[in-house]
Each structure stands twice: as C-alpha cells, then as structure tokens.
C-alpha cells in the first residue's frame, strides 16, 4: 500500500495550490487554486495530468478546498464548469459562503483589465451549488471507505486543515494555517492523530516572528501620522480576511483616540462581506465570539462605502481597496492617483506574489514603476509594509509537525531555498522523512496497513491490568568516587510485557487469532515445560566471635540472619534485579537461594571444599530465562564471605 501525491501547484512556489493524493484507490484533490502572478495558462494547475481524457468524475473521489483565498480556490469554477468535474466538493461553511464573493471580485477585476474571462458569474454560482459544506470536526463519510474531517486552521475565517482516512492510511493536508491567534481568529487546533503523511504549507519556512503587538502598534502609528498630516491611506487587500482584521484594529483605535477620519471600503462588496462575518462569528476567536450578544464585533461604526468621486476629494481618509497586491482593478486605479503625493501612505499587508506591483513596492524603494510600456507611475508616497501575516512561522510549522509526528511530511506553498532548509530541519531534528516536490512531480510514500486478528478475552483482560516490571539499570559515574555529593545514578526502567505475553496463531483457513500464552498450551493440549537449574555450593563464613558459638547448629533463626547478610552483600554488588528477602530464602527474579541443611543434597556436586564450620551450603535454583543473572550471583557469592 502506498500514498501517491501529485503536486499540480504550489510545489516550491506560492500560488495555485493544488495537490492530488491517491490513498488506497481513492483520489482526493486538495485545493484548486490559481496563480496571481500569471495571466496565461500557467495560472491554472495542469489538470490534464489527473486524467488524460478529461473524465475527472471517475478520476477523482472528491475535491476539498481549505479556504477561500484565490490561490486555493481560484481555479475551482474553471475546473467544474469548463473542465466538467461533477463530483463532490467539500469546504467549510464560511468558505462556501465567502468564496463566491472572492471569485466574483476577482472576475470583475479581470474584466476591467480586459483579459479573457476564464469563467463567468454563472459558472461561479453553478460551481458553488455542488459544494457540500462541512463543520469543524464533523466526520464526513464521503463514501464507504473515505472519511474526511476539518480542523480549525486560523489563517482566515473558515480556513481548515483536512484529515482524510482511507482504510488504515491517514493523512492531513493543512492548507494555510496560523499557530498563533490574531485579532479576530484563533490559533490552529488539531487532535493528535496517527498519520502516514502530513502535507504542510511553508510560506515562512525560516522566519521566526516576534510578538504581533509591537507590529500592530507600528501600523496604527503610521496610519495615524498620515491622516493627522491630512494624507490618504491606501490599504490594498483582498475582499476578505485581512480587511476585516485590520478594520477591527482600526475601529478599536479610532474609538480609543476619538478619531473621526472616515474609513472607506471600496465597492459595496466588502461591506456585504461584513454581514457574512457577523453570521459566522462562531468561527472567529473566542474573545470576539463572546461579544455577539451585546455588540457584534463586525458591526463597524466608522466604516463607509467609497465612491469613485471621493478619490480626489480633499481631506484625509483610510481606504481599503481590492484587489490586494495591487494586481490591477480598483486598487491600482487609486494607487495611480495617490502614489505621487508624499503625504499619502500605502500599506501593504502580508505577502505579495512575485510579479505584482505590491511585490515591487516591497522589494526596495522604487521611485518609478513601469506599469506597461507606455505608463509609468511616480511613486513618492510613503510605503509601510505590514509584517504580521496570517501564516504560521517556522516555529509553528515545526511545532505542528512535532505534535502530529507523521511518518512522512511534504512541504508545499513556500519558496524553494527556504523549504530546503526547513526540510533539513525536519529530517534532522524530528527524524521524519520529508519531501518538497516541484510542480507536476509525484511523491510516493508507503502507508500503514493493519492485519486484523481476533483476540481472546484472557489476553485483553491481562493487557488491561498493568504488569510492570521494574529493573534498575545503574550507570555509575566515574566521578562518584571523587566527589562526595554526587550519587550513583540509578535509573529505574519500567518495562511492561503485557503485549509479549500474547501469541499469534494462524491456522490454515481460519482467521488469525491472538491468545494469551496460558491459553496457548491449553489449545495445544500440551503441558508447560519448565527448565530449571539448581546448584548447591558452599560459601565462606567470616569467623567472628559471636558467630563461632552458634555456627554449630543451624537453627531457623540463624538461617534468617545468614540470608539477610547475603542479601546485603548482593545488594552491594549486584546492579540489576530486585532482591527480595523472604525470610528463609532470597529471591532475585526467578533465582532462589536458601541455606541447604541436608548433607546429601542432590544438587551438591563435589565436596572439595571441606572447611567445616567455616562455610555454609547454599542451595539455589533458577529458571532458564535468568541464567546469566544466576551465574553472576553465584560468582559474587563464591567470591565473598559472609
């Protein structure tokens, strides 16, 4: 059994996330995104790799979309309506609710740019009808074998990590996630699962971010300074997610500072998005969730709709404009108007894909930007880069991988050199096999498989009772003798042999059966055979004064003192095993030793050492399992005197 992962997008890059995973005969497509940096055929994943003849319904069991960002969902209407996939599509409730807005916004902007549309408004609506919404942690039985489950991912509202299980093989695809809570969303949460494969994003594969608080303040200060000086602030964002987060931040700040400067949202679209946010408040962070009864946090008081005529209106303002990264559309229009003024500020939140104006602005301090051959923009405005991002940082990724400890990990959605560094870290620090495949590559990993066996009641019961064995492995430090304070380090190691008491029996034509070892003999109709060794030997006695008087007769009291003395000697010399003093005999594991009083003990071999009263015979027996231990004890006993 194996899991095949075909990377259709976001392999060693950010953009057009798309991954097709085959587990035990089921094929799942995770995400179906588009690349914002391209406008030709490269913007979509190469779907022909899934099925040559275009029969996607049979080639795929289901499509799962983790969140509504275009690089995760952008190609979905194209895939379902143009390519003709008709199978089930799963996404969370917020994703289903907000994805059409996102797609529609993008489509409109494409229109304006005069590019050929790849899908229409109707396509989006039709596509969304095929979507089956799921709730977090809801276990969905896609078909008889395939089970999927969503976990909170934090990244944007409704973002989820998806767990998929077919038979015994299980995997998690994280999508984008955030391990630290932000203004309006909680941190990613997942159960401890047994996984064969984890596919994780790695946008910030090497970055470790410090606290958000300072950065938030920095942002607010920059905005405040700008509007105080009468400038205009442009915040190019995508319709959803970041806009709401920053808006909560600004709204809060406005209230505290008693500012009256208007905050605008471009187009009616984002205002409408707030309506969705209000209903989906259960998917936000705990803090915001609790406020729903008194004041819904997404009821913004200072937010107004923006009108095109306001672009050149006098006075300061803050404007959220779509699309993000200034790839075109309205945000570009406003940017062209506002960029030449020094008073104005452009705030770039988060990541900008290479090739966009946003990327150009971030990578240096350009004074001029060539839009195309004929147009050139003078950039004199201030540029502020927002460095808090809804993606997890390197520590978060490592934490997640460590927490889930899958058998294998695949990195996607990141930049190649950084991914390679992270891959090394995962392999060396966590010992987990890690891959970062490029686009259109396939990674094959083995998957777990279980053999079923019936277990007998005795075995299960004996497993339910703990059966610990304690053994001390002492490792004596060399320094022990030198320093007074340090003690011998003796570790108590606990072993539990419950499972090993079981025996697996396979009979021809019957189901494999697990039984307890006691039952096994019964089943065979045989009797247990024990091998025991016995040895009787003399041991030297120290000739002490008080002992000489009593050494002639060996009463039972005397035996006890002898045994307890012996036990003292053994506990000094012996490093392993538990010494049990049972009065007349001493027990170490299965090794028993007692004073032998009969002269013709059958286990006594030679009477070569005849020192009379100076030695006492000890009779010992042990079972074969503890043979080494037994001889060790005997040699200790022979070499020492009582």
């Amino acid at each position, binding site marked *: 059994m194996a899991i095949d992962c075909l990377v259709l997008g976001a392999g060693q890059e950010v953009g057009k996330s798309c991954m097709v995973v085959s587990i035990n005969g089921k094929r799942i497509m995770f995400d179906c995104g588009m690349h914002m940096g391209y406008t030709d055929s490269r913007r979509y994943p190469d779907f022909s790799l899934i099925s040559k003849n275009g029969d996607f319904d049979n080639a795929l069991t289901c499509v799962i979309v983790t969140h509504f960002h275009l690089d995760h969902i952008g190609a979905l209407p194209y895939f379902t309506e143009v390519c003709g996939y008709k199978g089930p599509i799963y996404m969370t409730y917020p994703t289903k609710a907000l994805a059409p807005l996102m797609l529609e916004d993008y489509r409109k902007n494409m229109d304006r740019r005069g590019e050929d549309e790849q899908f229409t408004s109707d396509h989006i609506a039709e596509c969304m009808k095929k979507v089956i919404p799921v709730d977090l*942690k809801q276990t969905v039985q896609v078909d008889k074998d395939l089970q999927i489950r969503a976990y909170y991912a934090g990244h944007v509202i409704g973002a989820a990590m998806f767990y998929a299980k077919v038979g015994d093989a299980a995997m998690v695809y994280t999508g984008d996630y955030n391990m630290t809570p932000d203004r309006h969303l909680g941190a990613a949460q997942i159960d401890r699962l047994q996984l064969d494969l984890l596919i994780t994003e790695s946008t910030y594969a090497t970055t470790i971010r410090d606290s958000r608080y300072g950065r938030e303040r920095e942002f607010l200060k920059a905005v405040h300074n700008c509007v105080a000086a009468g400038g205009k602030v442009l915040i190019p964002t995508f319709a959803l997610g970041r806009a709401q987060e920053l808006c909560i931040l600004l709204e809060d700040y406005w209230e505290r500072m008693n500012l009256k400067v208007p905050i605008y949202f471009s187009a009616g679209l984002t205002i409408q998005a707030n309506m969705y946010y209000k209903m989906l408040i259960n998917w936000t962070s705990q803090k915001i969730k609790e406020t729903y009864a008194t004041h819904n946090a997404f009821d913004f008081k200072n937010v107004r709709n923006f009108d095109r005529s306001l672009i050149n209106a006098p006075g300061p303002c803050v404007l959220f404009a779509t699309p993000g990264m200034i790839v075109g559309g309205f945000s570009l229009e406003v940017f062209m108007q506002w960029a030449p003024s020094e008073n104005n500020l452009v705030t770039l939140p988060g990541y900008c894909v290479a090739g966009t104006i946003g990327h150009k602005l971030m990578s240096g301090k350009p004074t001029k930007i060539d839009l195309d051959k004929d147009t050139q923009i003078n950039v004199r405005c201030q540029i502020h880069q927002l460095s808090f991002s809804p993606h997890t940082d390197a520590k978060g990724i490592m934490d997640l991988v460590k927490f889930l400890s899958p058998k294998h990990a695949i990195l996607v959605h990141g930049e190649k050199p950084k991914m390679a560094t992270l891959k090394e870290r995962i392999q060396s620090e966590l010992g987990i096999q890690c891959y970062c495949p490029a686009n259109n590559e396939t990674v094959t990993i083995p998957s777990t498989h279980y053999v079923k066996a019936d277990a007998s009641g005795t075995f*299960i019961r004996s497993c339910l009772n703990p059966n610990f064995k304690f053994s001390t492995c002492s490792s004596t430090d060399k320094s022990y003798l030198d320093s007074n304070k340090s003690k011998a380090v003796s570790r108590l190691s606990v072993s539990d042999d419950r499972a090993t008491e079981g025996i697996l029996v396979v009979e021809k034509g019957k189901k494999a059966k697990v039984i307890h070892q006691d039952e096994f003999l019964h089943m065979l109709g045989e009797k247990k055979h024990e091998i025991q060794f016995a040895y009787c030997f003399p041991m030297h006695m120290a000739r002490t004064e008080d002992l000489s008087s009593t050494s002639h007769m060996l009463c039972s009291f005397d035996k006890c003192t002898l045994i307890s003395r012996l036990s003292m000697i053994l506990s000094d010399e012996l490093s392993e095993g538990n010494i049990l003093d049972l009065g007349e005999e001493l027990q170490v594991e299965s090794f028993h030793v007692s004073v032998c009083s009969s002269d013709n003990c059958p286990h006594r071999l030679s009477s070569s050492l005849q020192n009379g009263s100076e030695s006492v015979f000890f009779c010992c027996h042990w079972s074969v399992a503890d043979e080494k231990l037994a001889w060790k004890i005997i040699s200790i006993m022979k070499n020492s005197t009582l």
Partner: protein
Amino acid sequence: TCLSKGGGFHFPPCHMLSVSGFRILLDCPLDLSSLAIFSPVPIALEAHESLETDSVVRKKQKIEKTLDANDLVFAEPWYKTVKSLHLWDASFIDVILISSPTGMLGLPFLTRTKDFSAKIYVTEAAARIGQLMMEDLVSIHMELRQFYGPEDSSSLQWMRWEGLEVLPSELKKIALGADCEELGAWMPLYSAVDVKDCMRKVQTLKYAEEACYNGTLVIKAFSSGLEIGTCNWTINGPKRNIAYISSSIFVSTHAMDFNFLGLQGNDLIIFSDFSTLDTTENMENDNTYCDPAASSNASDDLYNLEEIAASLLKDDESMEEMEKLAFICTCAFDSVRAGGSVLVPIDRLGIVLCLLEQMSLLLESSSLKVPIYIISSVAEELLAFTNIIPEWLCKQRQEKLFSGEPLFAHVKLIKERKIHVFPAVHSVELLTNWQEPCVVFCPHWSLRLGPVVHLLRYWCSDPNSLLILESGDDANLALLPFKPMAMKVLQCSFLSGISLQKVQPLLKALQPKLLLFPKDLRCKIQISEANTIIHYSENETLCMPSSKESTEIYIATDLASQFHWKTLKQETVTRLDGELFMDQGKHRLLSGFRQADSKQHRPLLHWGSPDLKRLLTELSKMGITGTLKKNMDSAESKNAAGIIDIDDPEKALIDVRETVQSP
C-alpha cells in the same frame, strides 16, 4: 434500563445504559408540567391571609369537589426530577449524553452532587440553548421568590403528610405519582451558580464529531431535526455499536434535518421516540389515523435505500407544520384586528422563531401597526445566538447564509423596530413603549412562572384577546388559577417526533440486528422485520446479548513482518511484540519505541515433555556422558520423569519431574 418514558417535548425520556463496563445516562430532564400544582403568585398573595383558616376548614370537610384555584399549593415551587435517577449514585455514572436542550434541565442537580465525575457530552448549540433556558428558569424563579420572601419552613408544608393529605386527588397524583412513590423526586431549584458550574463540566460537540471516551467508546451525535442542536447518538464500543434515536423530525423548518443515514450500520438501536404515544390518541379520534395495514402494504414493496430515504424526507410533515403556523397567525391576526392582544407562552425556540417570521409578515401585509413584544431575561441573547449558527440549521436557512441574508428574519425586524425585546415585564422601556393591541411572546409554558402570569391576569377577562397554548397534559389545570376566563384560548400541538407511519420504513433503512422498542408503542405499530425486537418498559433492566464474541486487534504490517514465525503441526505461531494501544474503540498493536532491547530476553515458553533416552543419546553425541536413573517416586507415572547423572566432563545432574501445572 429505561428510567422514564417522559412526556412530550418538554420532558424527554431518560435512560441508563451500561456499555463495555461504562455507565451511560441518556438525558437528564426536568418535569416542568408538574409545576401546575403550584399557584402562580398573584393569587397566592390574596389568599395568603385566608390560607390557614381555609385549609383547616377544607380538611374537615374532606369532600371531593371540583378543583378551584385555591386548591393549588401556595408555596415556592419545587421541581420534579426523574424519580428513578435518585436510585443511582451519581458518582458511578461515567458518561452523560444529552440529546436536546430540554434534556439537560435536570443536569445541575446531578453535577452539584459530590463525587460527580461523569463526562457530559452535548452538542454545542443544545448546550448554549439549554444554558439559556436554565438561566431563564432560575431568573424567573428568583422573581417569584421575592414574593415569598426568604425560604422558611412553612413553605415546605405541602411536602409533609398533613400537607399532602389536603391536596385534591388530581394534584396528589402529580405530586406523588400513581404509586405514591415520587415524592423524593421533588427538589428545590438549583441556583445560577449551579448552572454555571454545570456548564463548566459540559463537553460540547459538533454534529458528527467523534468523541472518544477512555479510548474505548466512540460517541457521535447526529442531528435529529426536532429543535436546534438536538441529536441522536451513536456509541461504538469494541464489542457493539449502538444507536439511540430520540424524538426526531425528518424535515424541519428551522433545525438541521434528521440525519438517519448516519445511524446506519449499528447492531443495536434503542428507539426512544415516545412522542406518538401522546398524539395518536387524538389522531384516532379525528379518524385521521392511518391504519397500520395500509402502511405495511406499502412497505411490502422492495424498497431500495434511496427510495426509503426519499419517502422519509418527503416534505408533507413540514408542510403541515407550516400550515399550522399559518393558521395560528391568522387566528392571532383576527383577534388583534378585533382590538384584543395575543399572548404566546410557547417556549419551543424553533416554533417561536417561525411564528415571529410569519406573524410579522402577516401584520406587514395588512396595514395594521401592531407591535410584537418578546419578554424574557434571555431573549436578546437567544435571538442573537440563533443568527450565528448556520451550521445547525436546515438547508433553506443555510442557503440564506450563502446568499448573504440573515438566517432568521427577526434580526431585520428588531432593527426596524417591529419586534421589541425586553428582559422583564417591569422594565422601564417596556412601560414607555407599551401599546395595545399587541402580540407578546414570553415564558413560561407552564403558566406558573414568568411574565406570562402577569399578562394573563391582565388579559384573562378580555374576550377579544387570545392565548395560544401548546396542548399539554392538562390545560384545564394549567388555566385553573385564571378562571373565570373570557379570553379565547387556542390550543395547538406541534410535531415533536417520528410519526408512526414513518417508523417502519425508518427501521427498514437502518437495518439493526437488534431493536429495543418501547412496550407502550407495541400495540400501536406492527414491525414486520426479521430482526429481533426486544420490548422495554419503564424501570426494567434488560440484558442484551453481545454481538461480537471476541475483540479484534489491529496489528501494524511493519510490525507483523518482524515476527518470528514458527510452524507447528497445523498452525503457525509467533509471539507478539510491540505495544498494545487502545484508541478510538480499537485495539491496535504497534511497534513500540523500545530501543536497544536486544539484551532483554523475551519470555520463553517451553512445552511438551522430553524423552529422556533421546536426550541422553543427543548428549552423548556432544561428548557428554551420563547414566539414566529412574526416579523412584514417579515410577508409576507414564511420563519420562527421571534423573540423568552426568559424569563427564563435569559432574552434573538432570532432574526431570512433573510439575503440578494447571493450564
């Protein structure tokens, strides 16, 4: 064990199960209909002075006469819990599953006991609504308590024998139960602190979320359609899969539909929908009752699953419900037009929400300007809550989310100031806003607690006004304190469970091996399935045969390939290794994390008995010589017990004996 068959929507049944050694309590309701024996406050005040003389006189008379308002108990109400539940020690319960908000009203009584350690599973929405219901109950109770002042011993008078003696037989039956043994079930209400404490112990789930108890039981909730957040449960243990069906509605106008497909593939089904028990009697009178022959004829056809599913999900029930609501609205509308007001003391959240929508629609279409008031301490929060839970609602409501509209119309209506929400009757805003005629929604349906009492007193003599009641056990008793009534009363029943005709196809779709069916419903429906049906009745413990004999163990292949196999006569054996895990109700054997284990010996097991002569020859081949000495003691034993003396190379002795070993 079934503890109580409950009664209708407000008092769901309660069961105790024992699965794989764990005790599971299904639902913990409160019998609020028995509040009827108490007197609502205003009367109590008037009658308080005459109480003593009056009751003494009546005691002497001892004549059974028709009940009047003065017969009711004038005391701070106590609350009746499930009586048999007190026979169980709360600390022995391992798991509590709550299937509806009403099913958790009795929970604080349990959670406040010492040593309570059970894990409580409730769906997220049910927990929230249940919490609000409990808070509301506590707050209206507190209000009532102000009239009685601090609790004194006299308020317990009715509980003593002399107090109970005085009660008319009808009330006595409610107070004591038919067998006069339910007195112990009465409890004073819990406090707000108890509620808070209780909610802290609750573990909330989503629909179809897997919860694993102790690694053994996998518990899942599936929507039942009755109300927002209500659910049916499946319990998967290592030996058995159980589904518990509570009152369910296939197609709901508000809550998520009954997800019966999720209940498929279970060995044992506990059918616990008693709702038909109350309703069928009425239906038979109306001659609308569908005779079982007709339904069984229909089911003779070979349905495949989809057909059954389709027939179950036919919209007729919800259509009927909508018509019912429409009828109520027109009735209300008529009385409002006549200048009267409408009082709706209905506590079923979904029904209220739908009524609000329809009523306001109707009022809007006419030019009548009639305000709608909602008076409840938790109404504001409840209404806000219902608008943020798209995941728990039916498909049509979810569509509203996707098209960006509010889930329920009341959001808009509140904004437009057509619906007004107030926490209490005496709030200042209400008094300034008050306008008659009007429509008022308020708790409590028992007509003993909350704002409804005041309003009913106020309107009961107005012939134009209308009271809309859910038909309950005894409307006569409920209305008793307000008599004589000139006010019109509309009683209506709402669907609160699976209708009888649909039970049969449902069970066919689920295909259980074993069905636990309530005895009381046996005569009402013939179940012609081949599978075993066991009937249960109240307070009777049934023992179910186990469906699987042995437990399955899952052994990881990578571990299995490392086993050292040994072939015996017929079978191949190997000793197991690794570590045994119990997870998600499955035993799994995985390769352990033991490192450097080579030193440690695995336990050896030898069996059979050696042949001494062969041993000796084998030994001599290895250069060891010895002589065989038969052991004297075991001369008779047929086994090869004996001693071999080894002379060379060193002296040694092999003693073969029979051990007293019992297999």
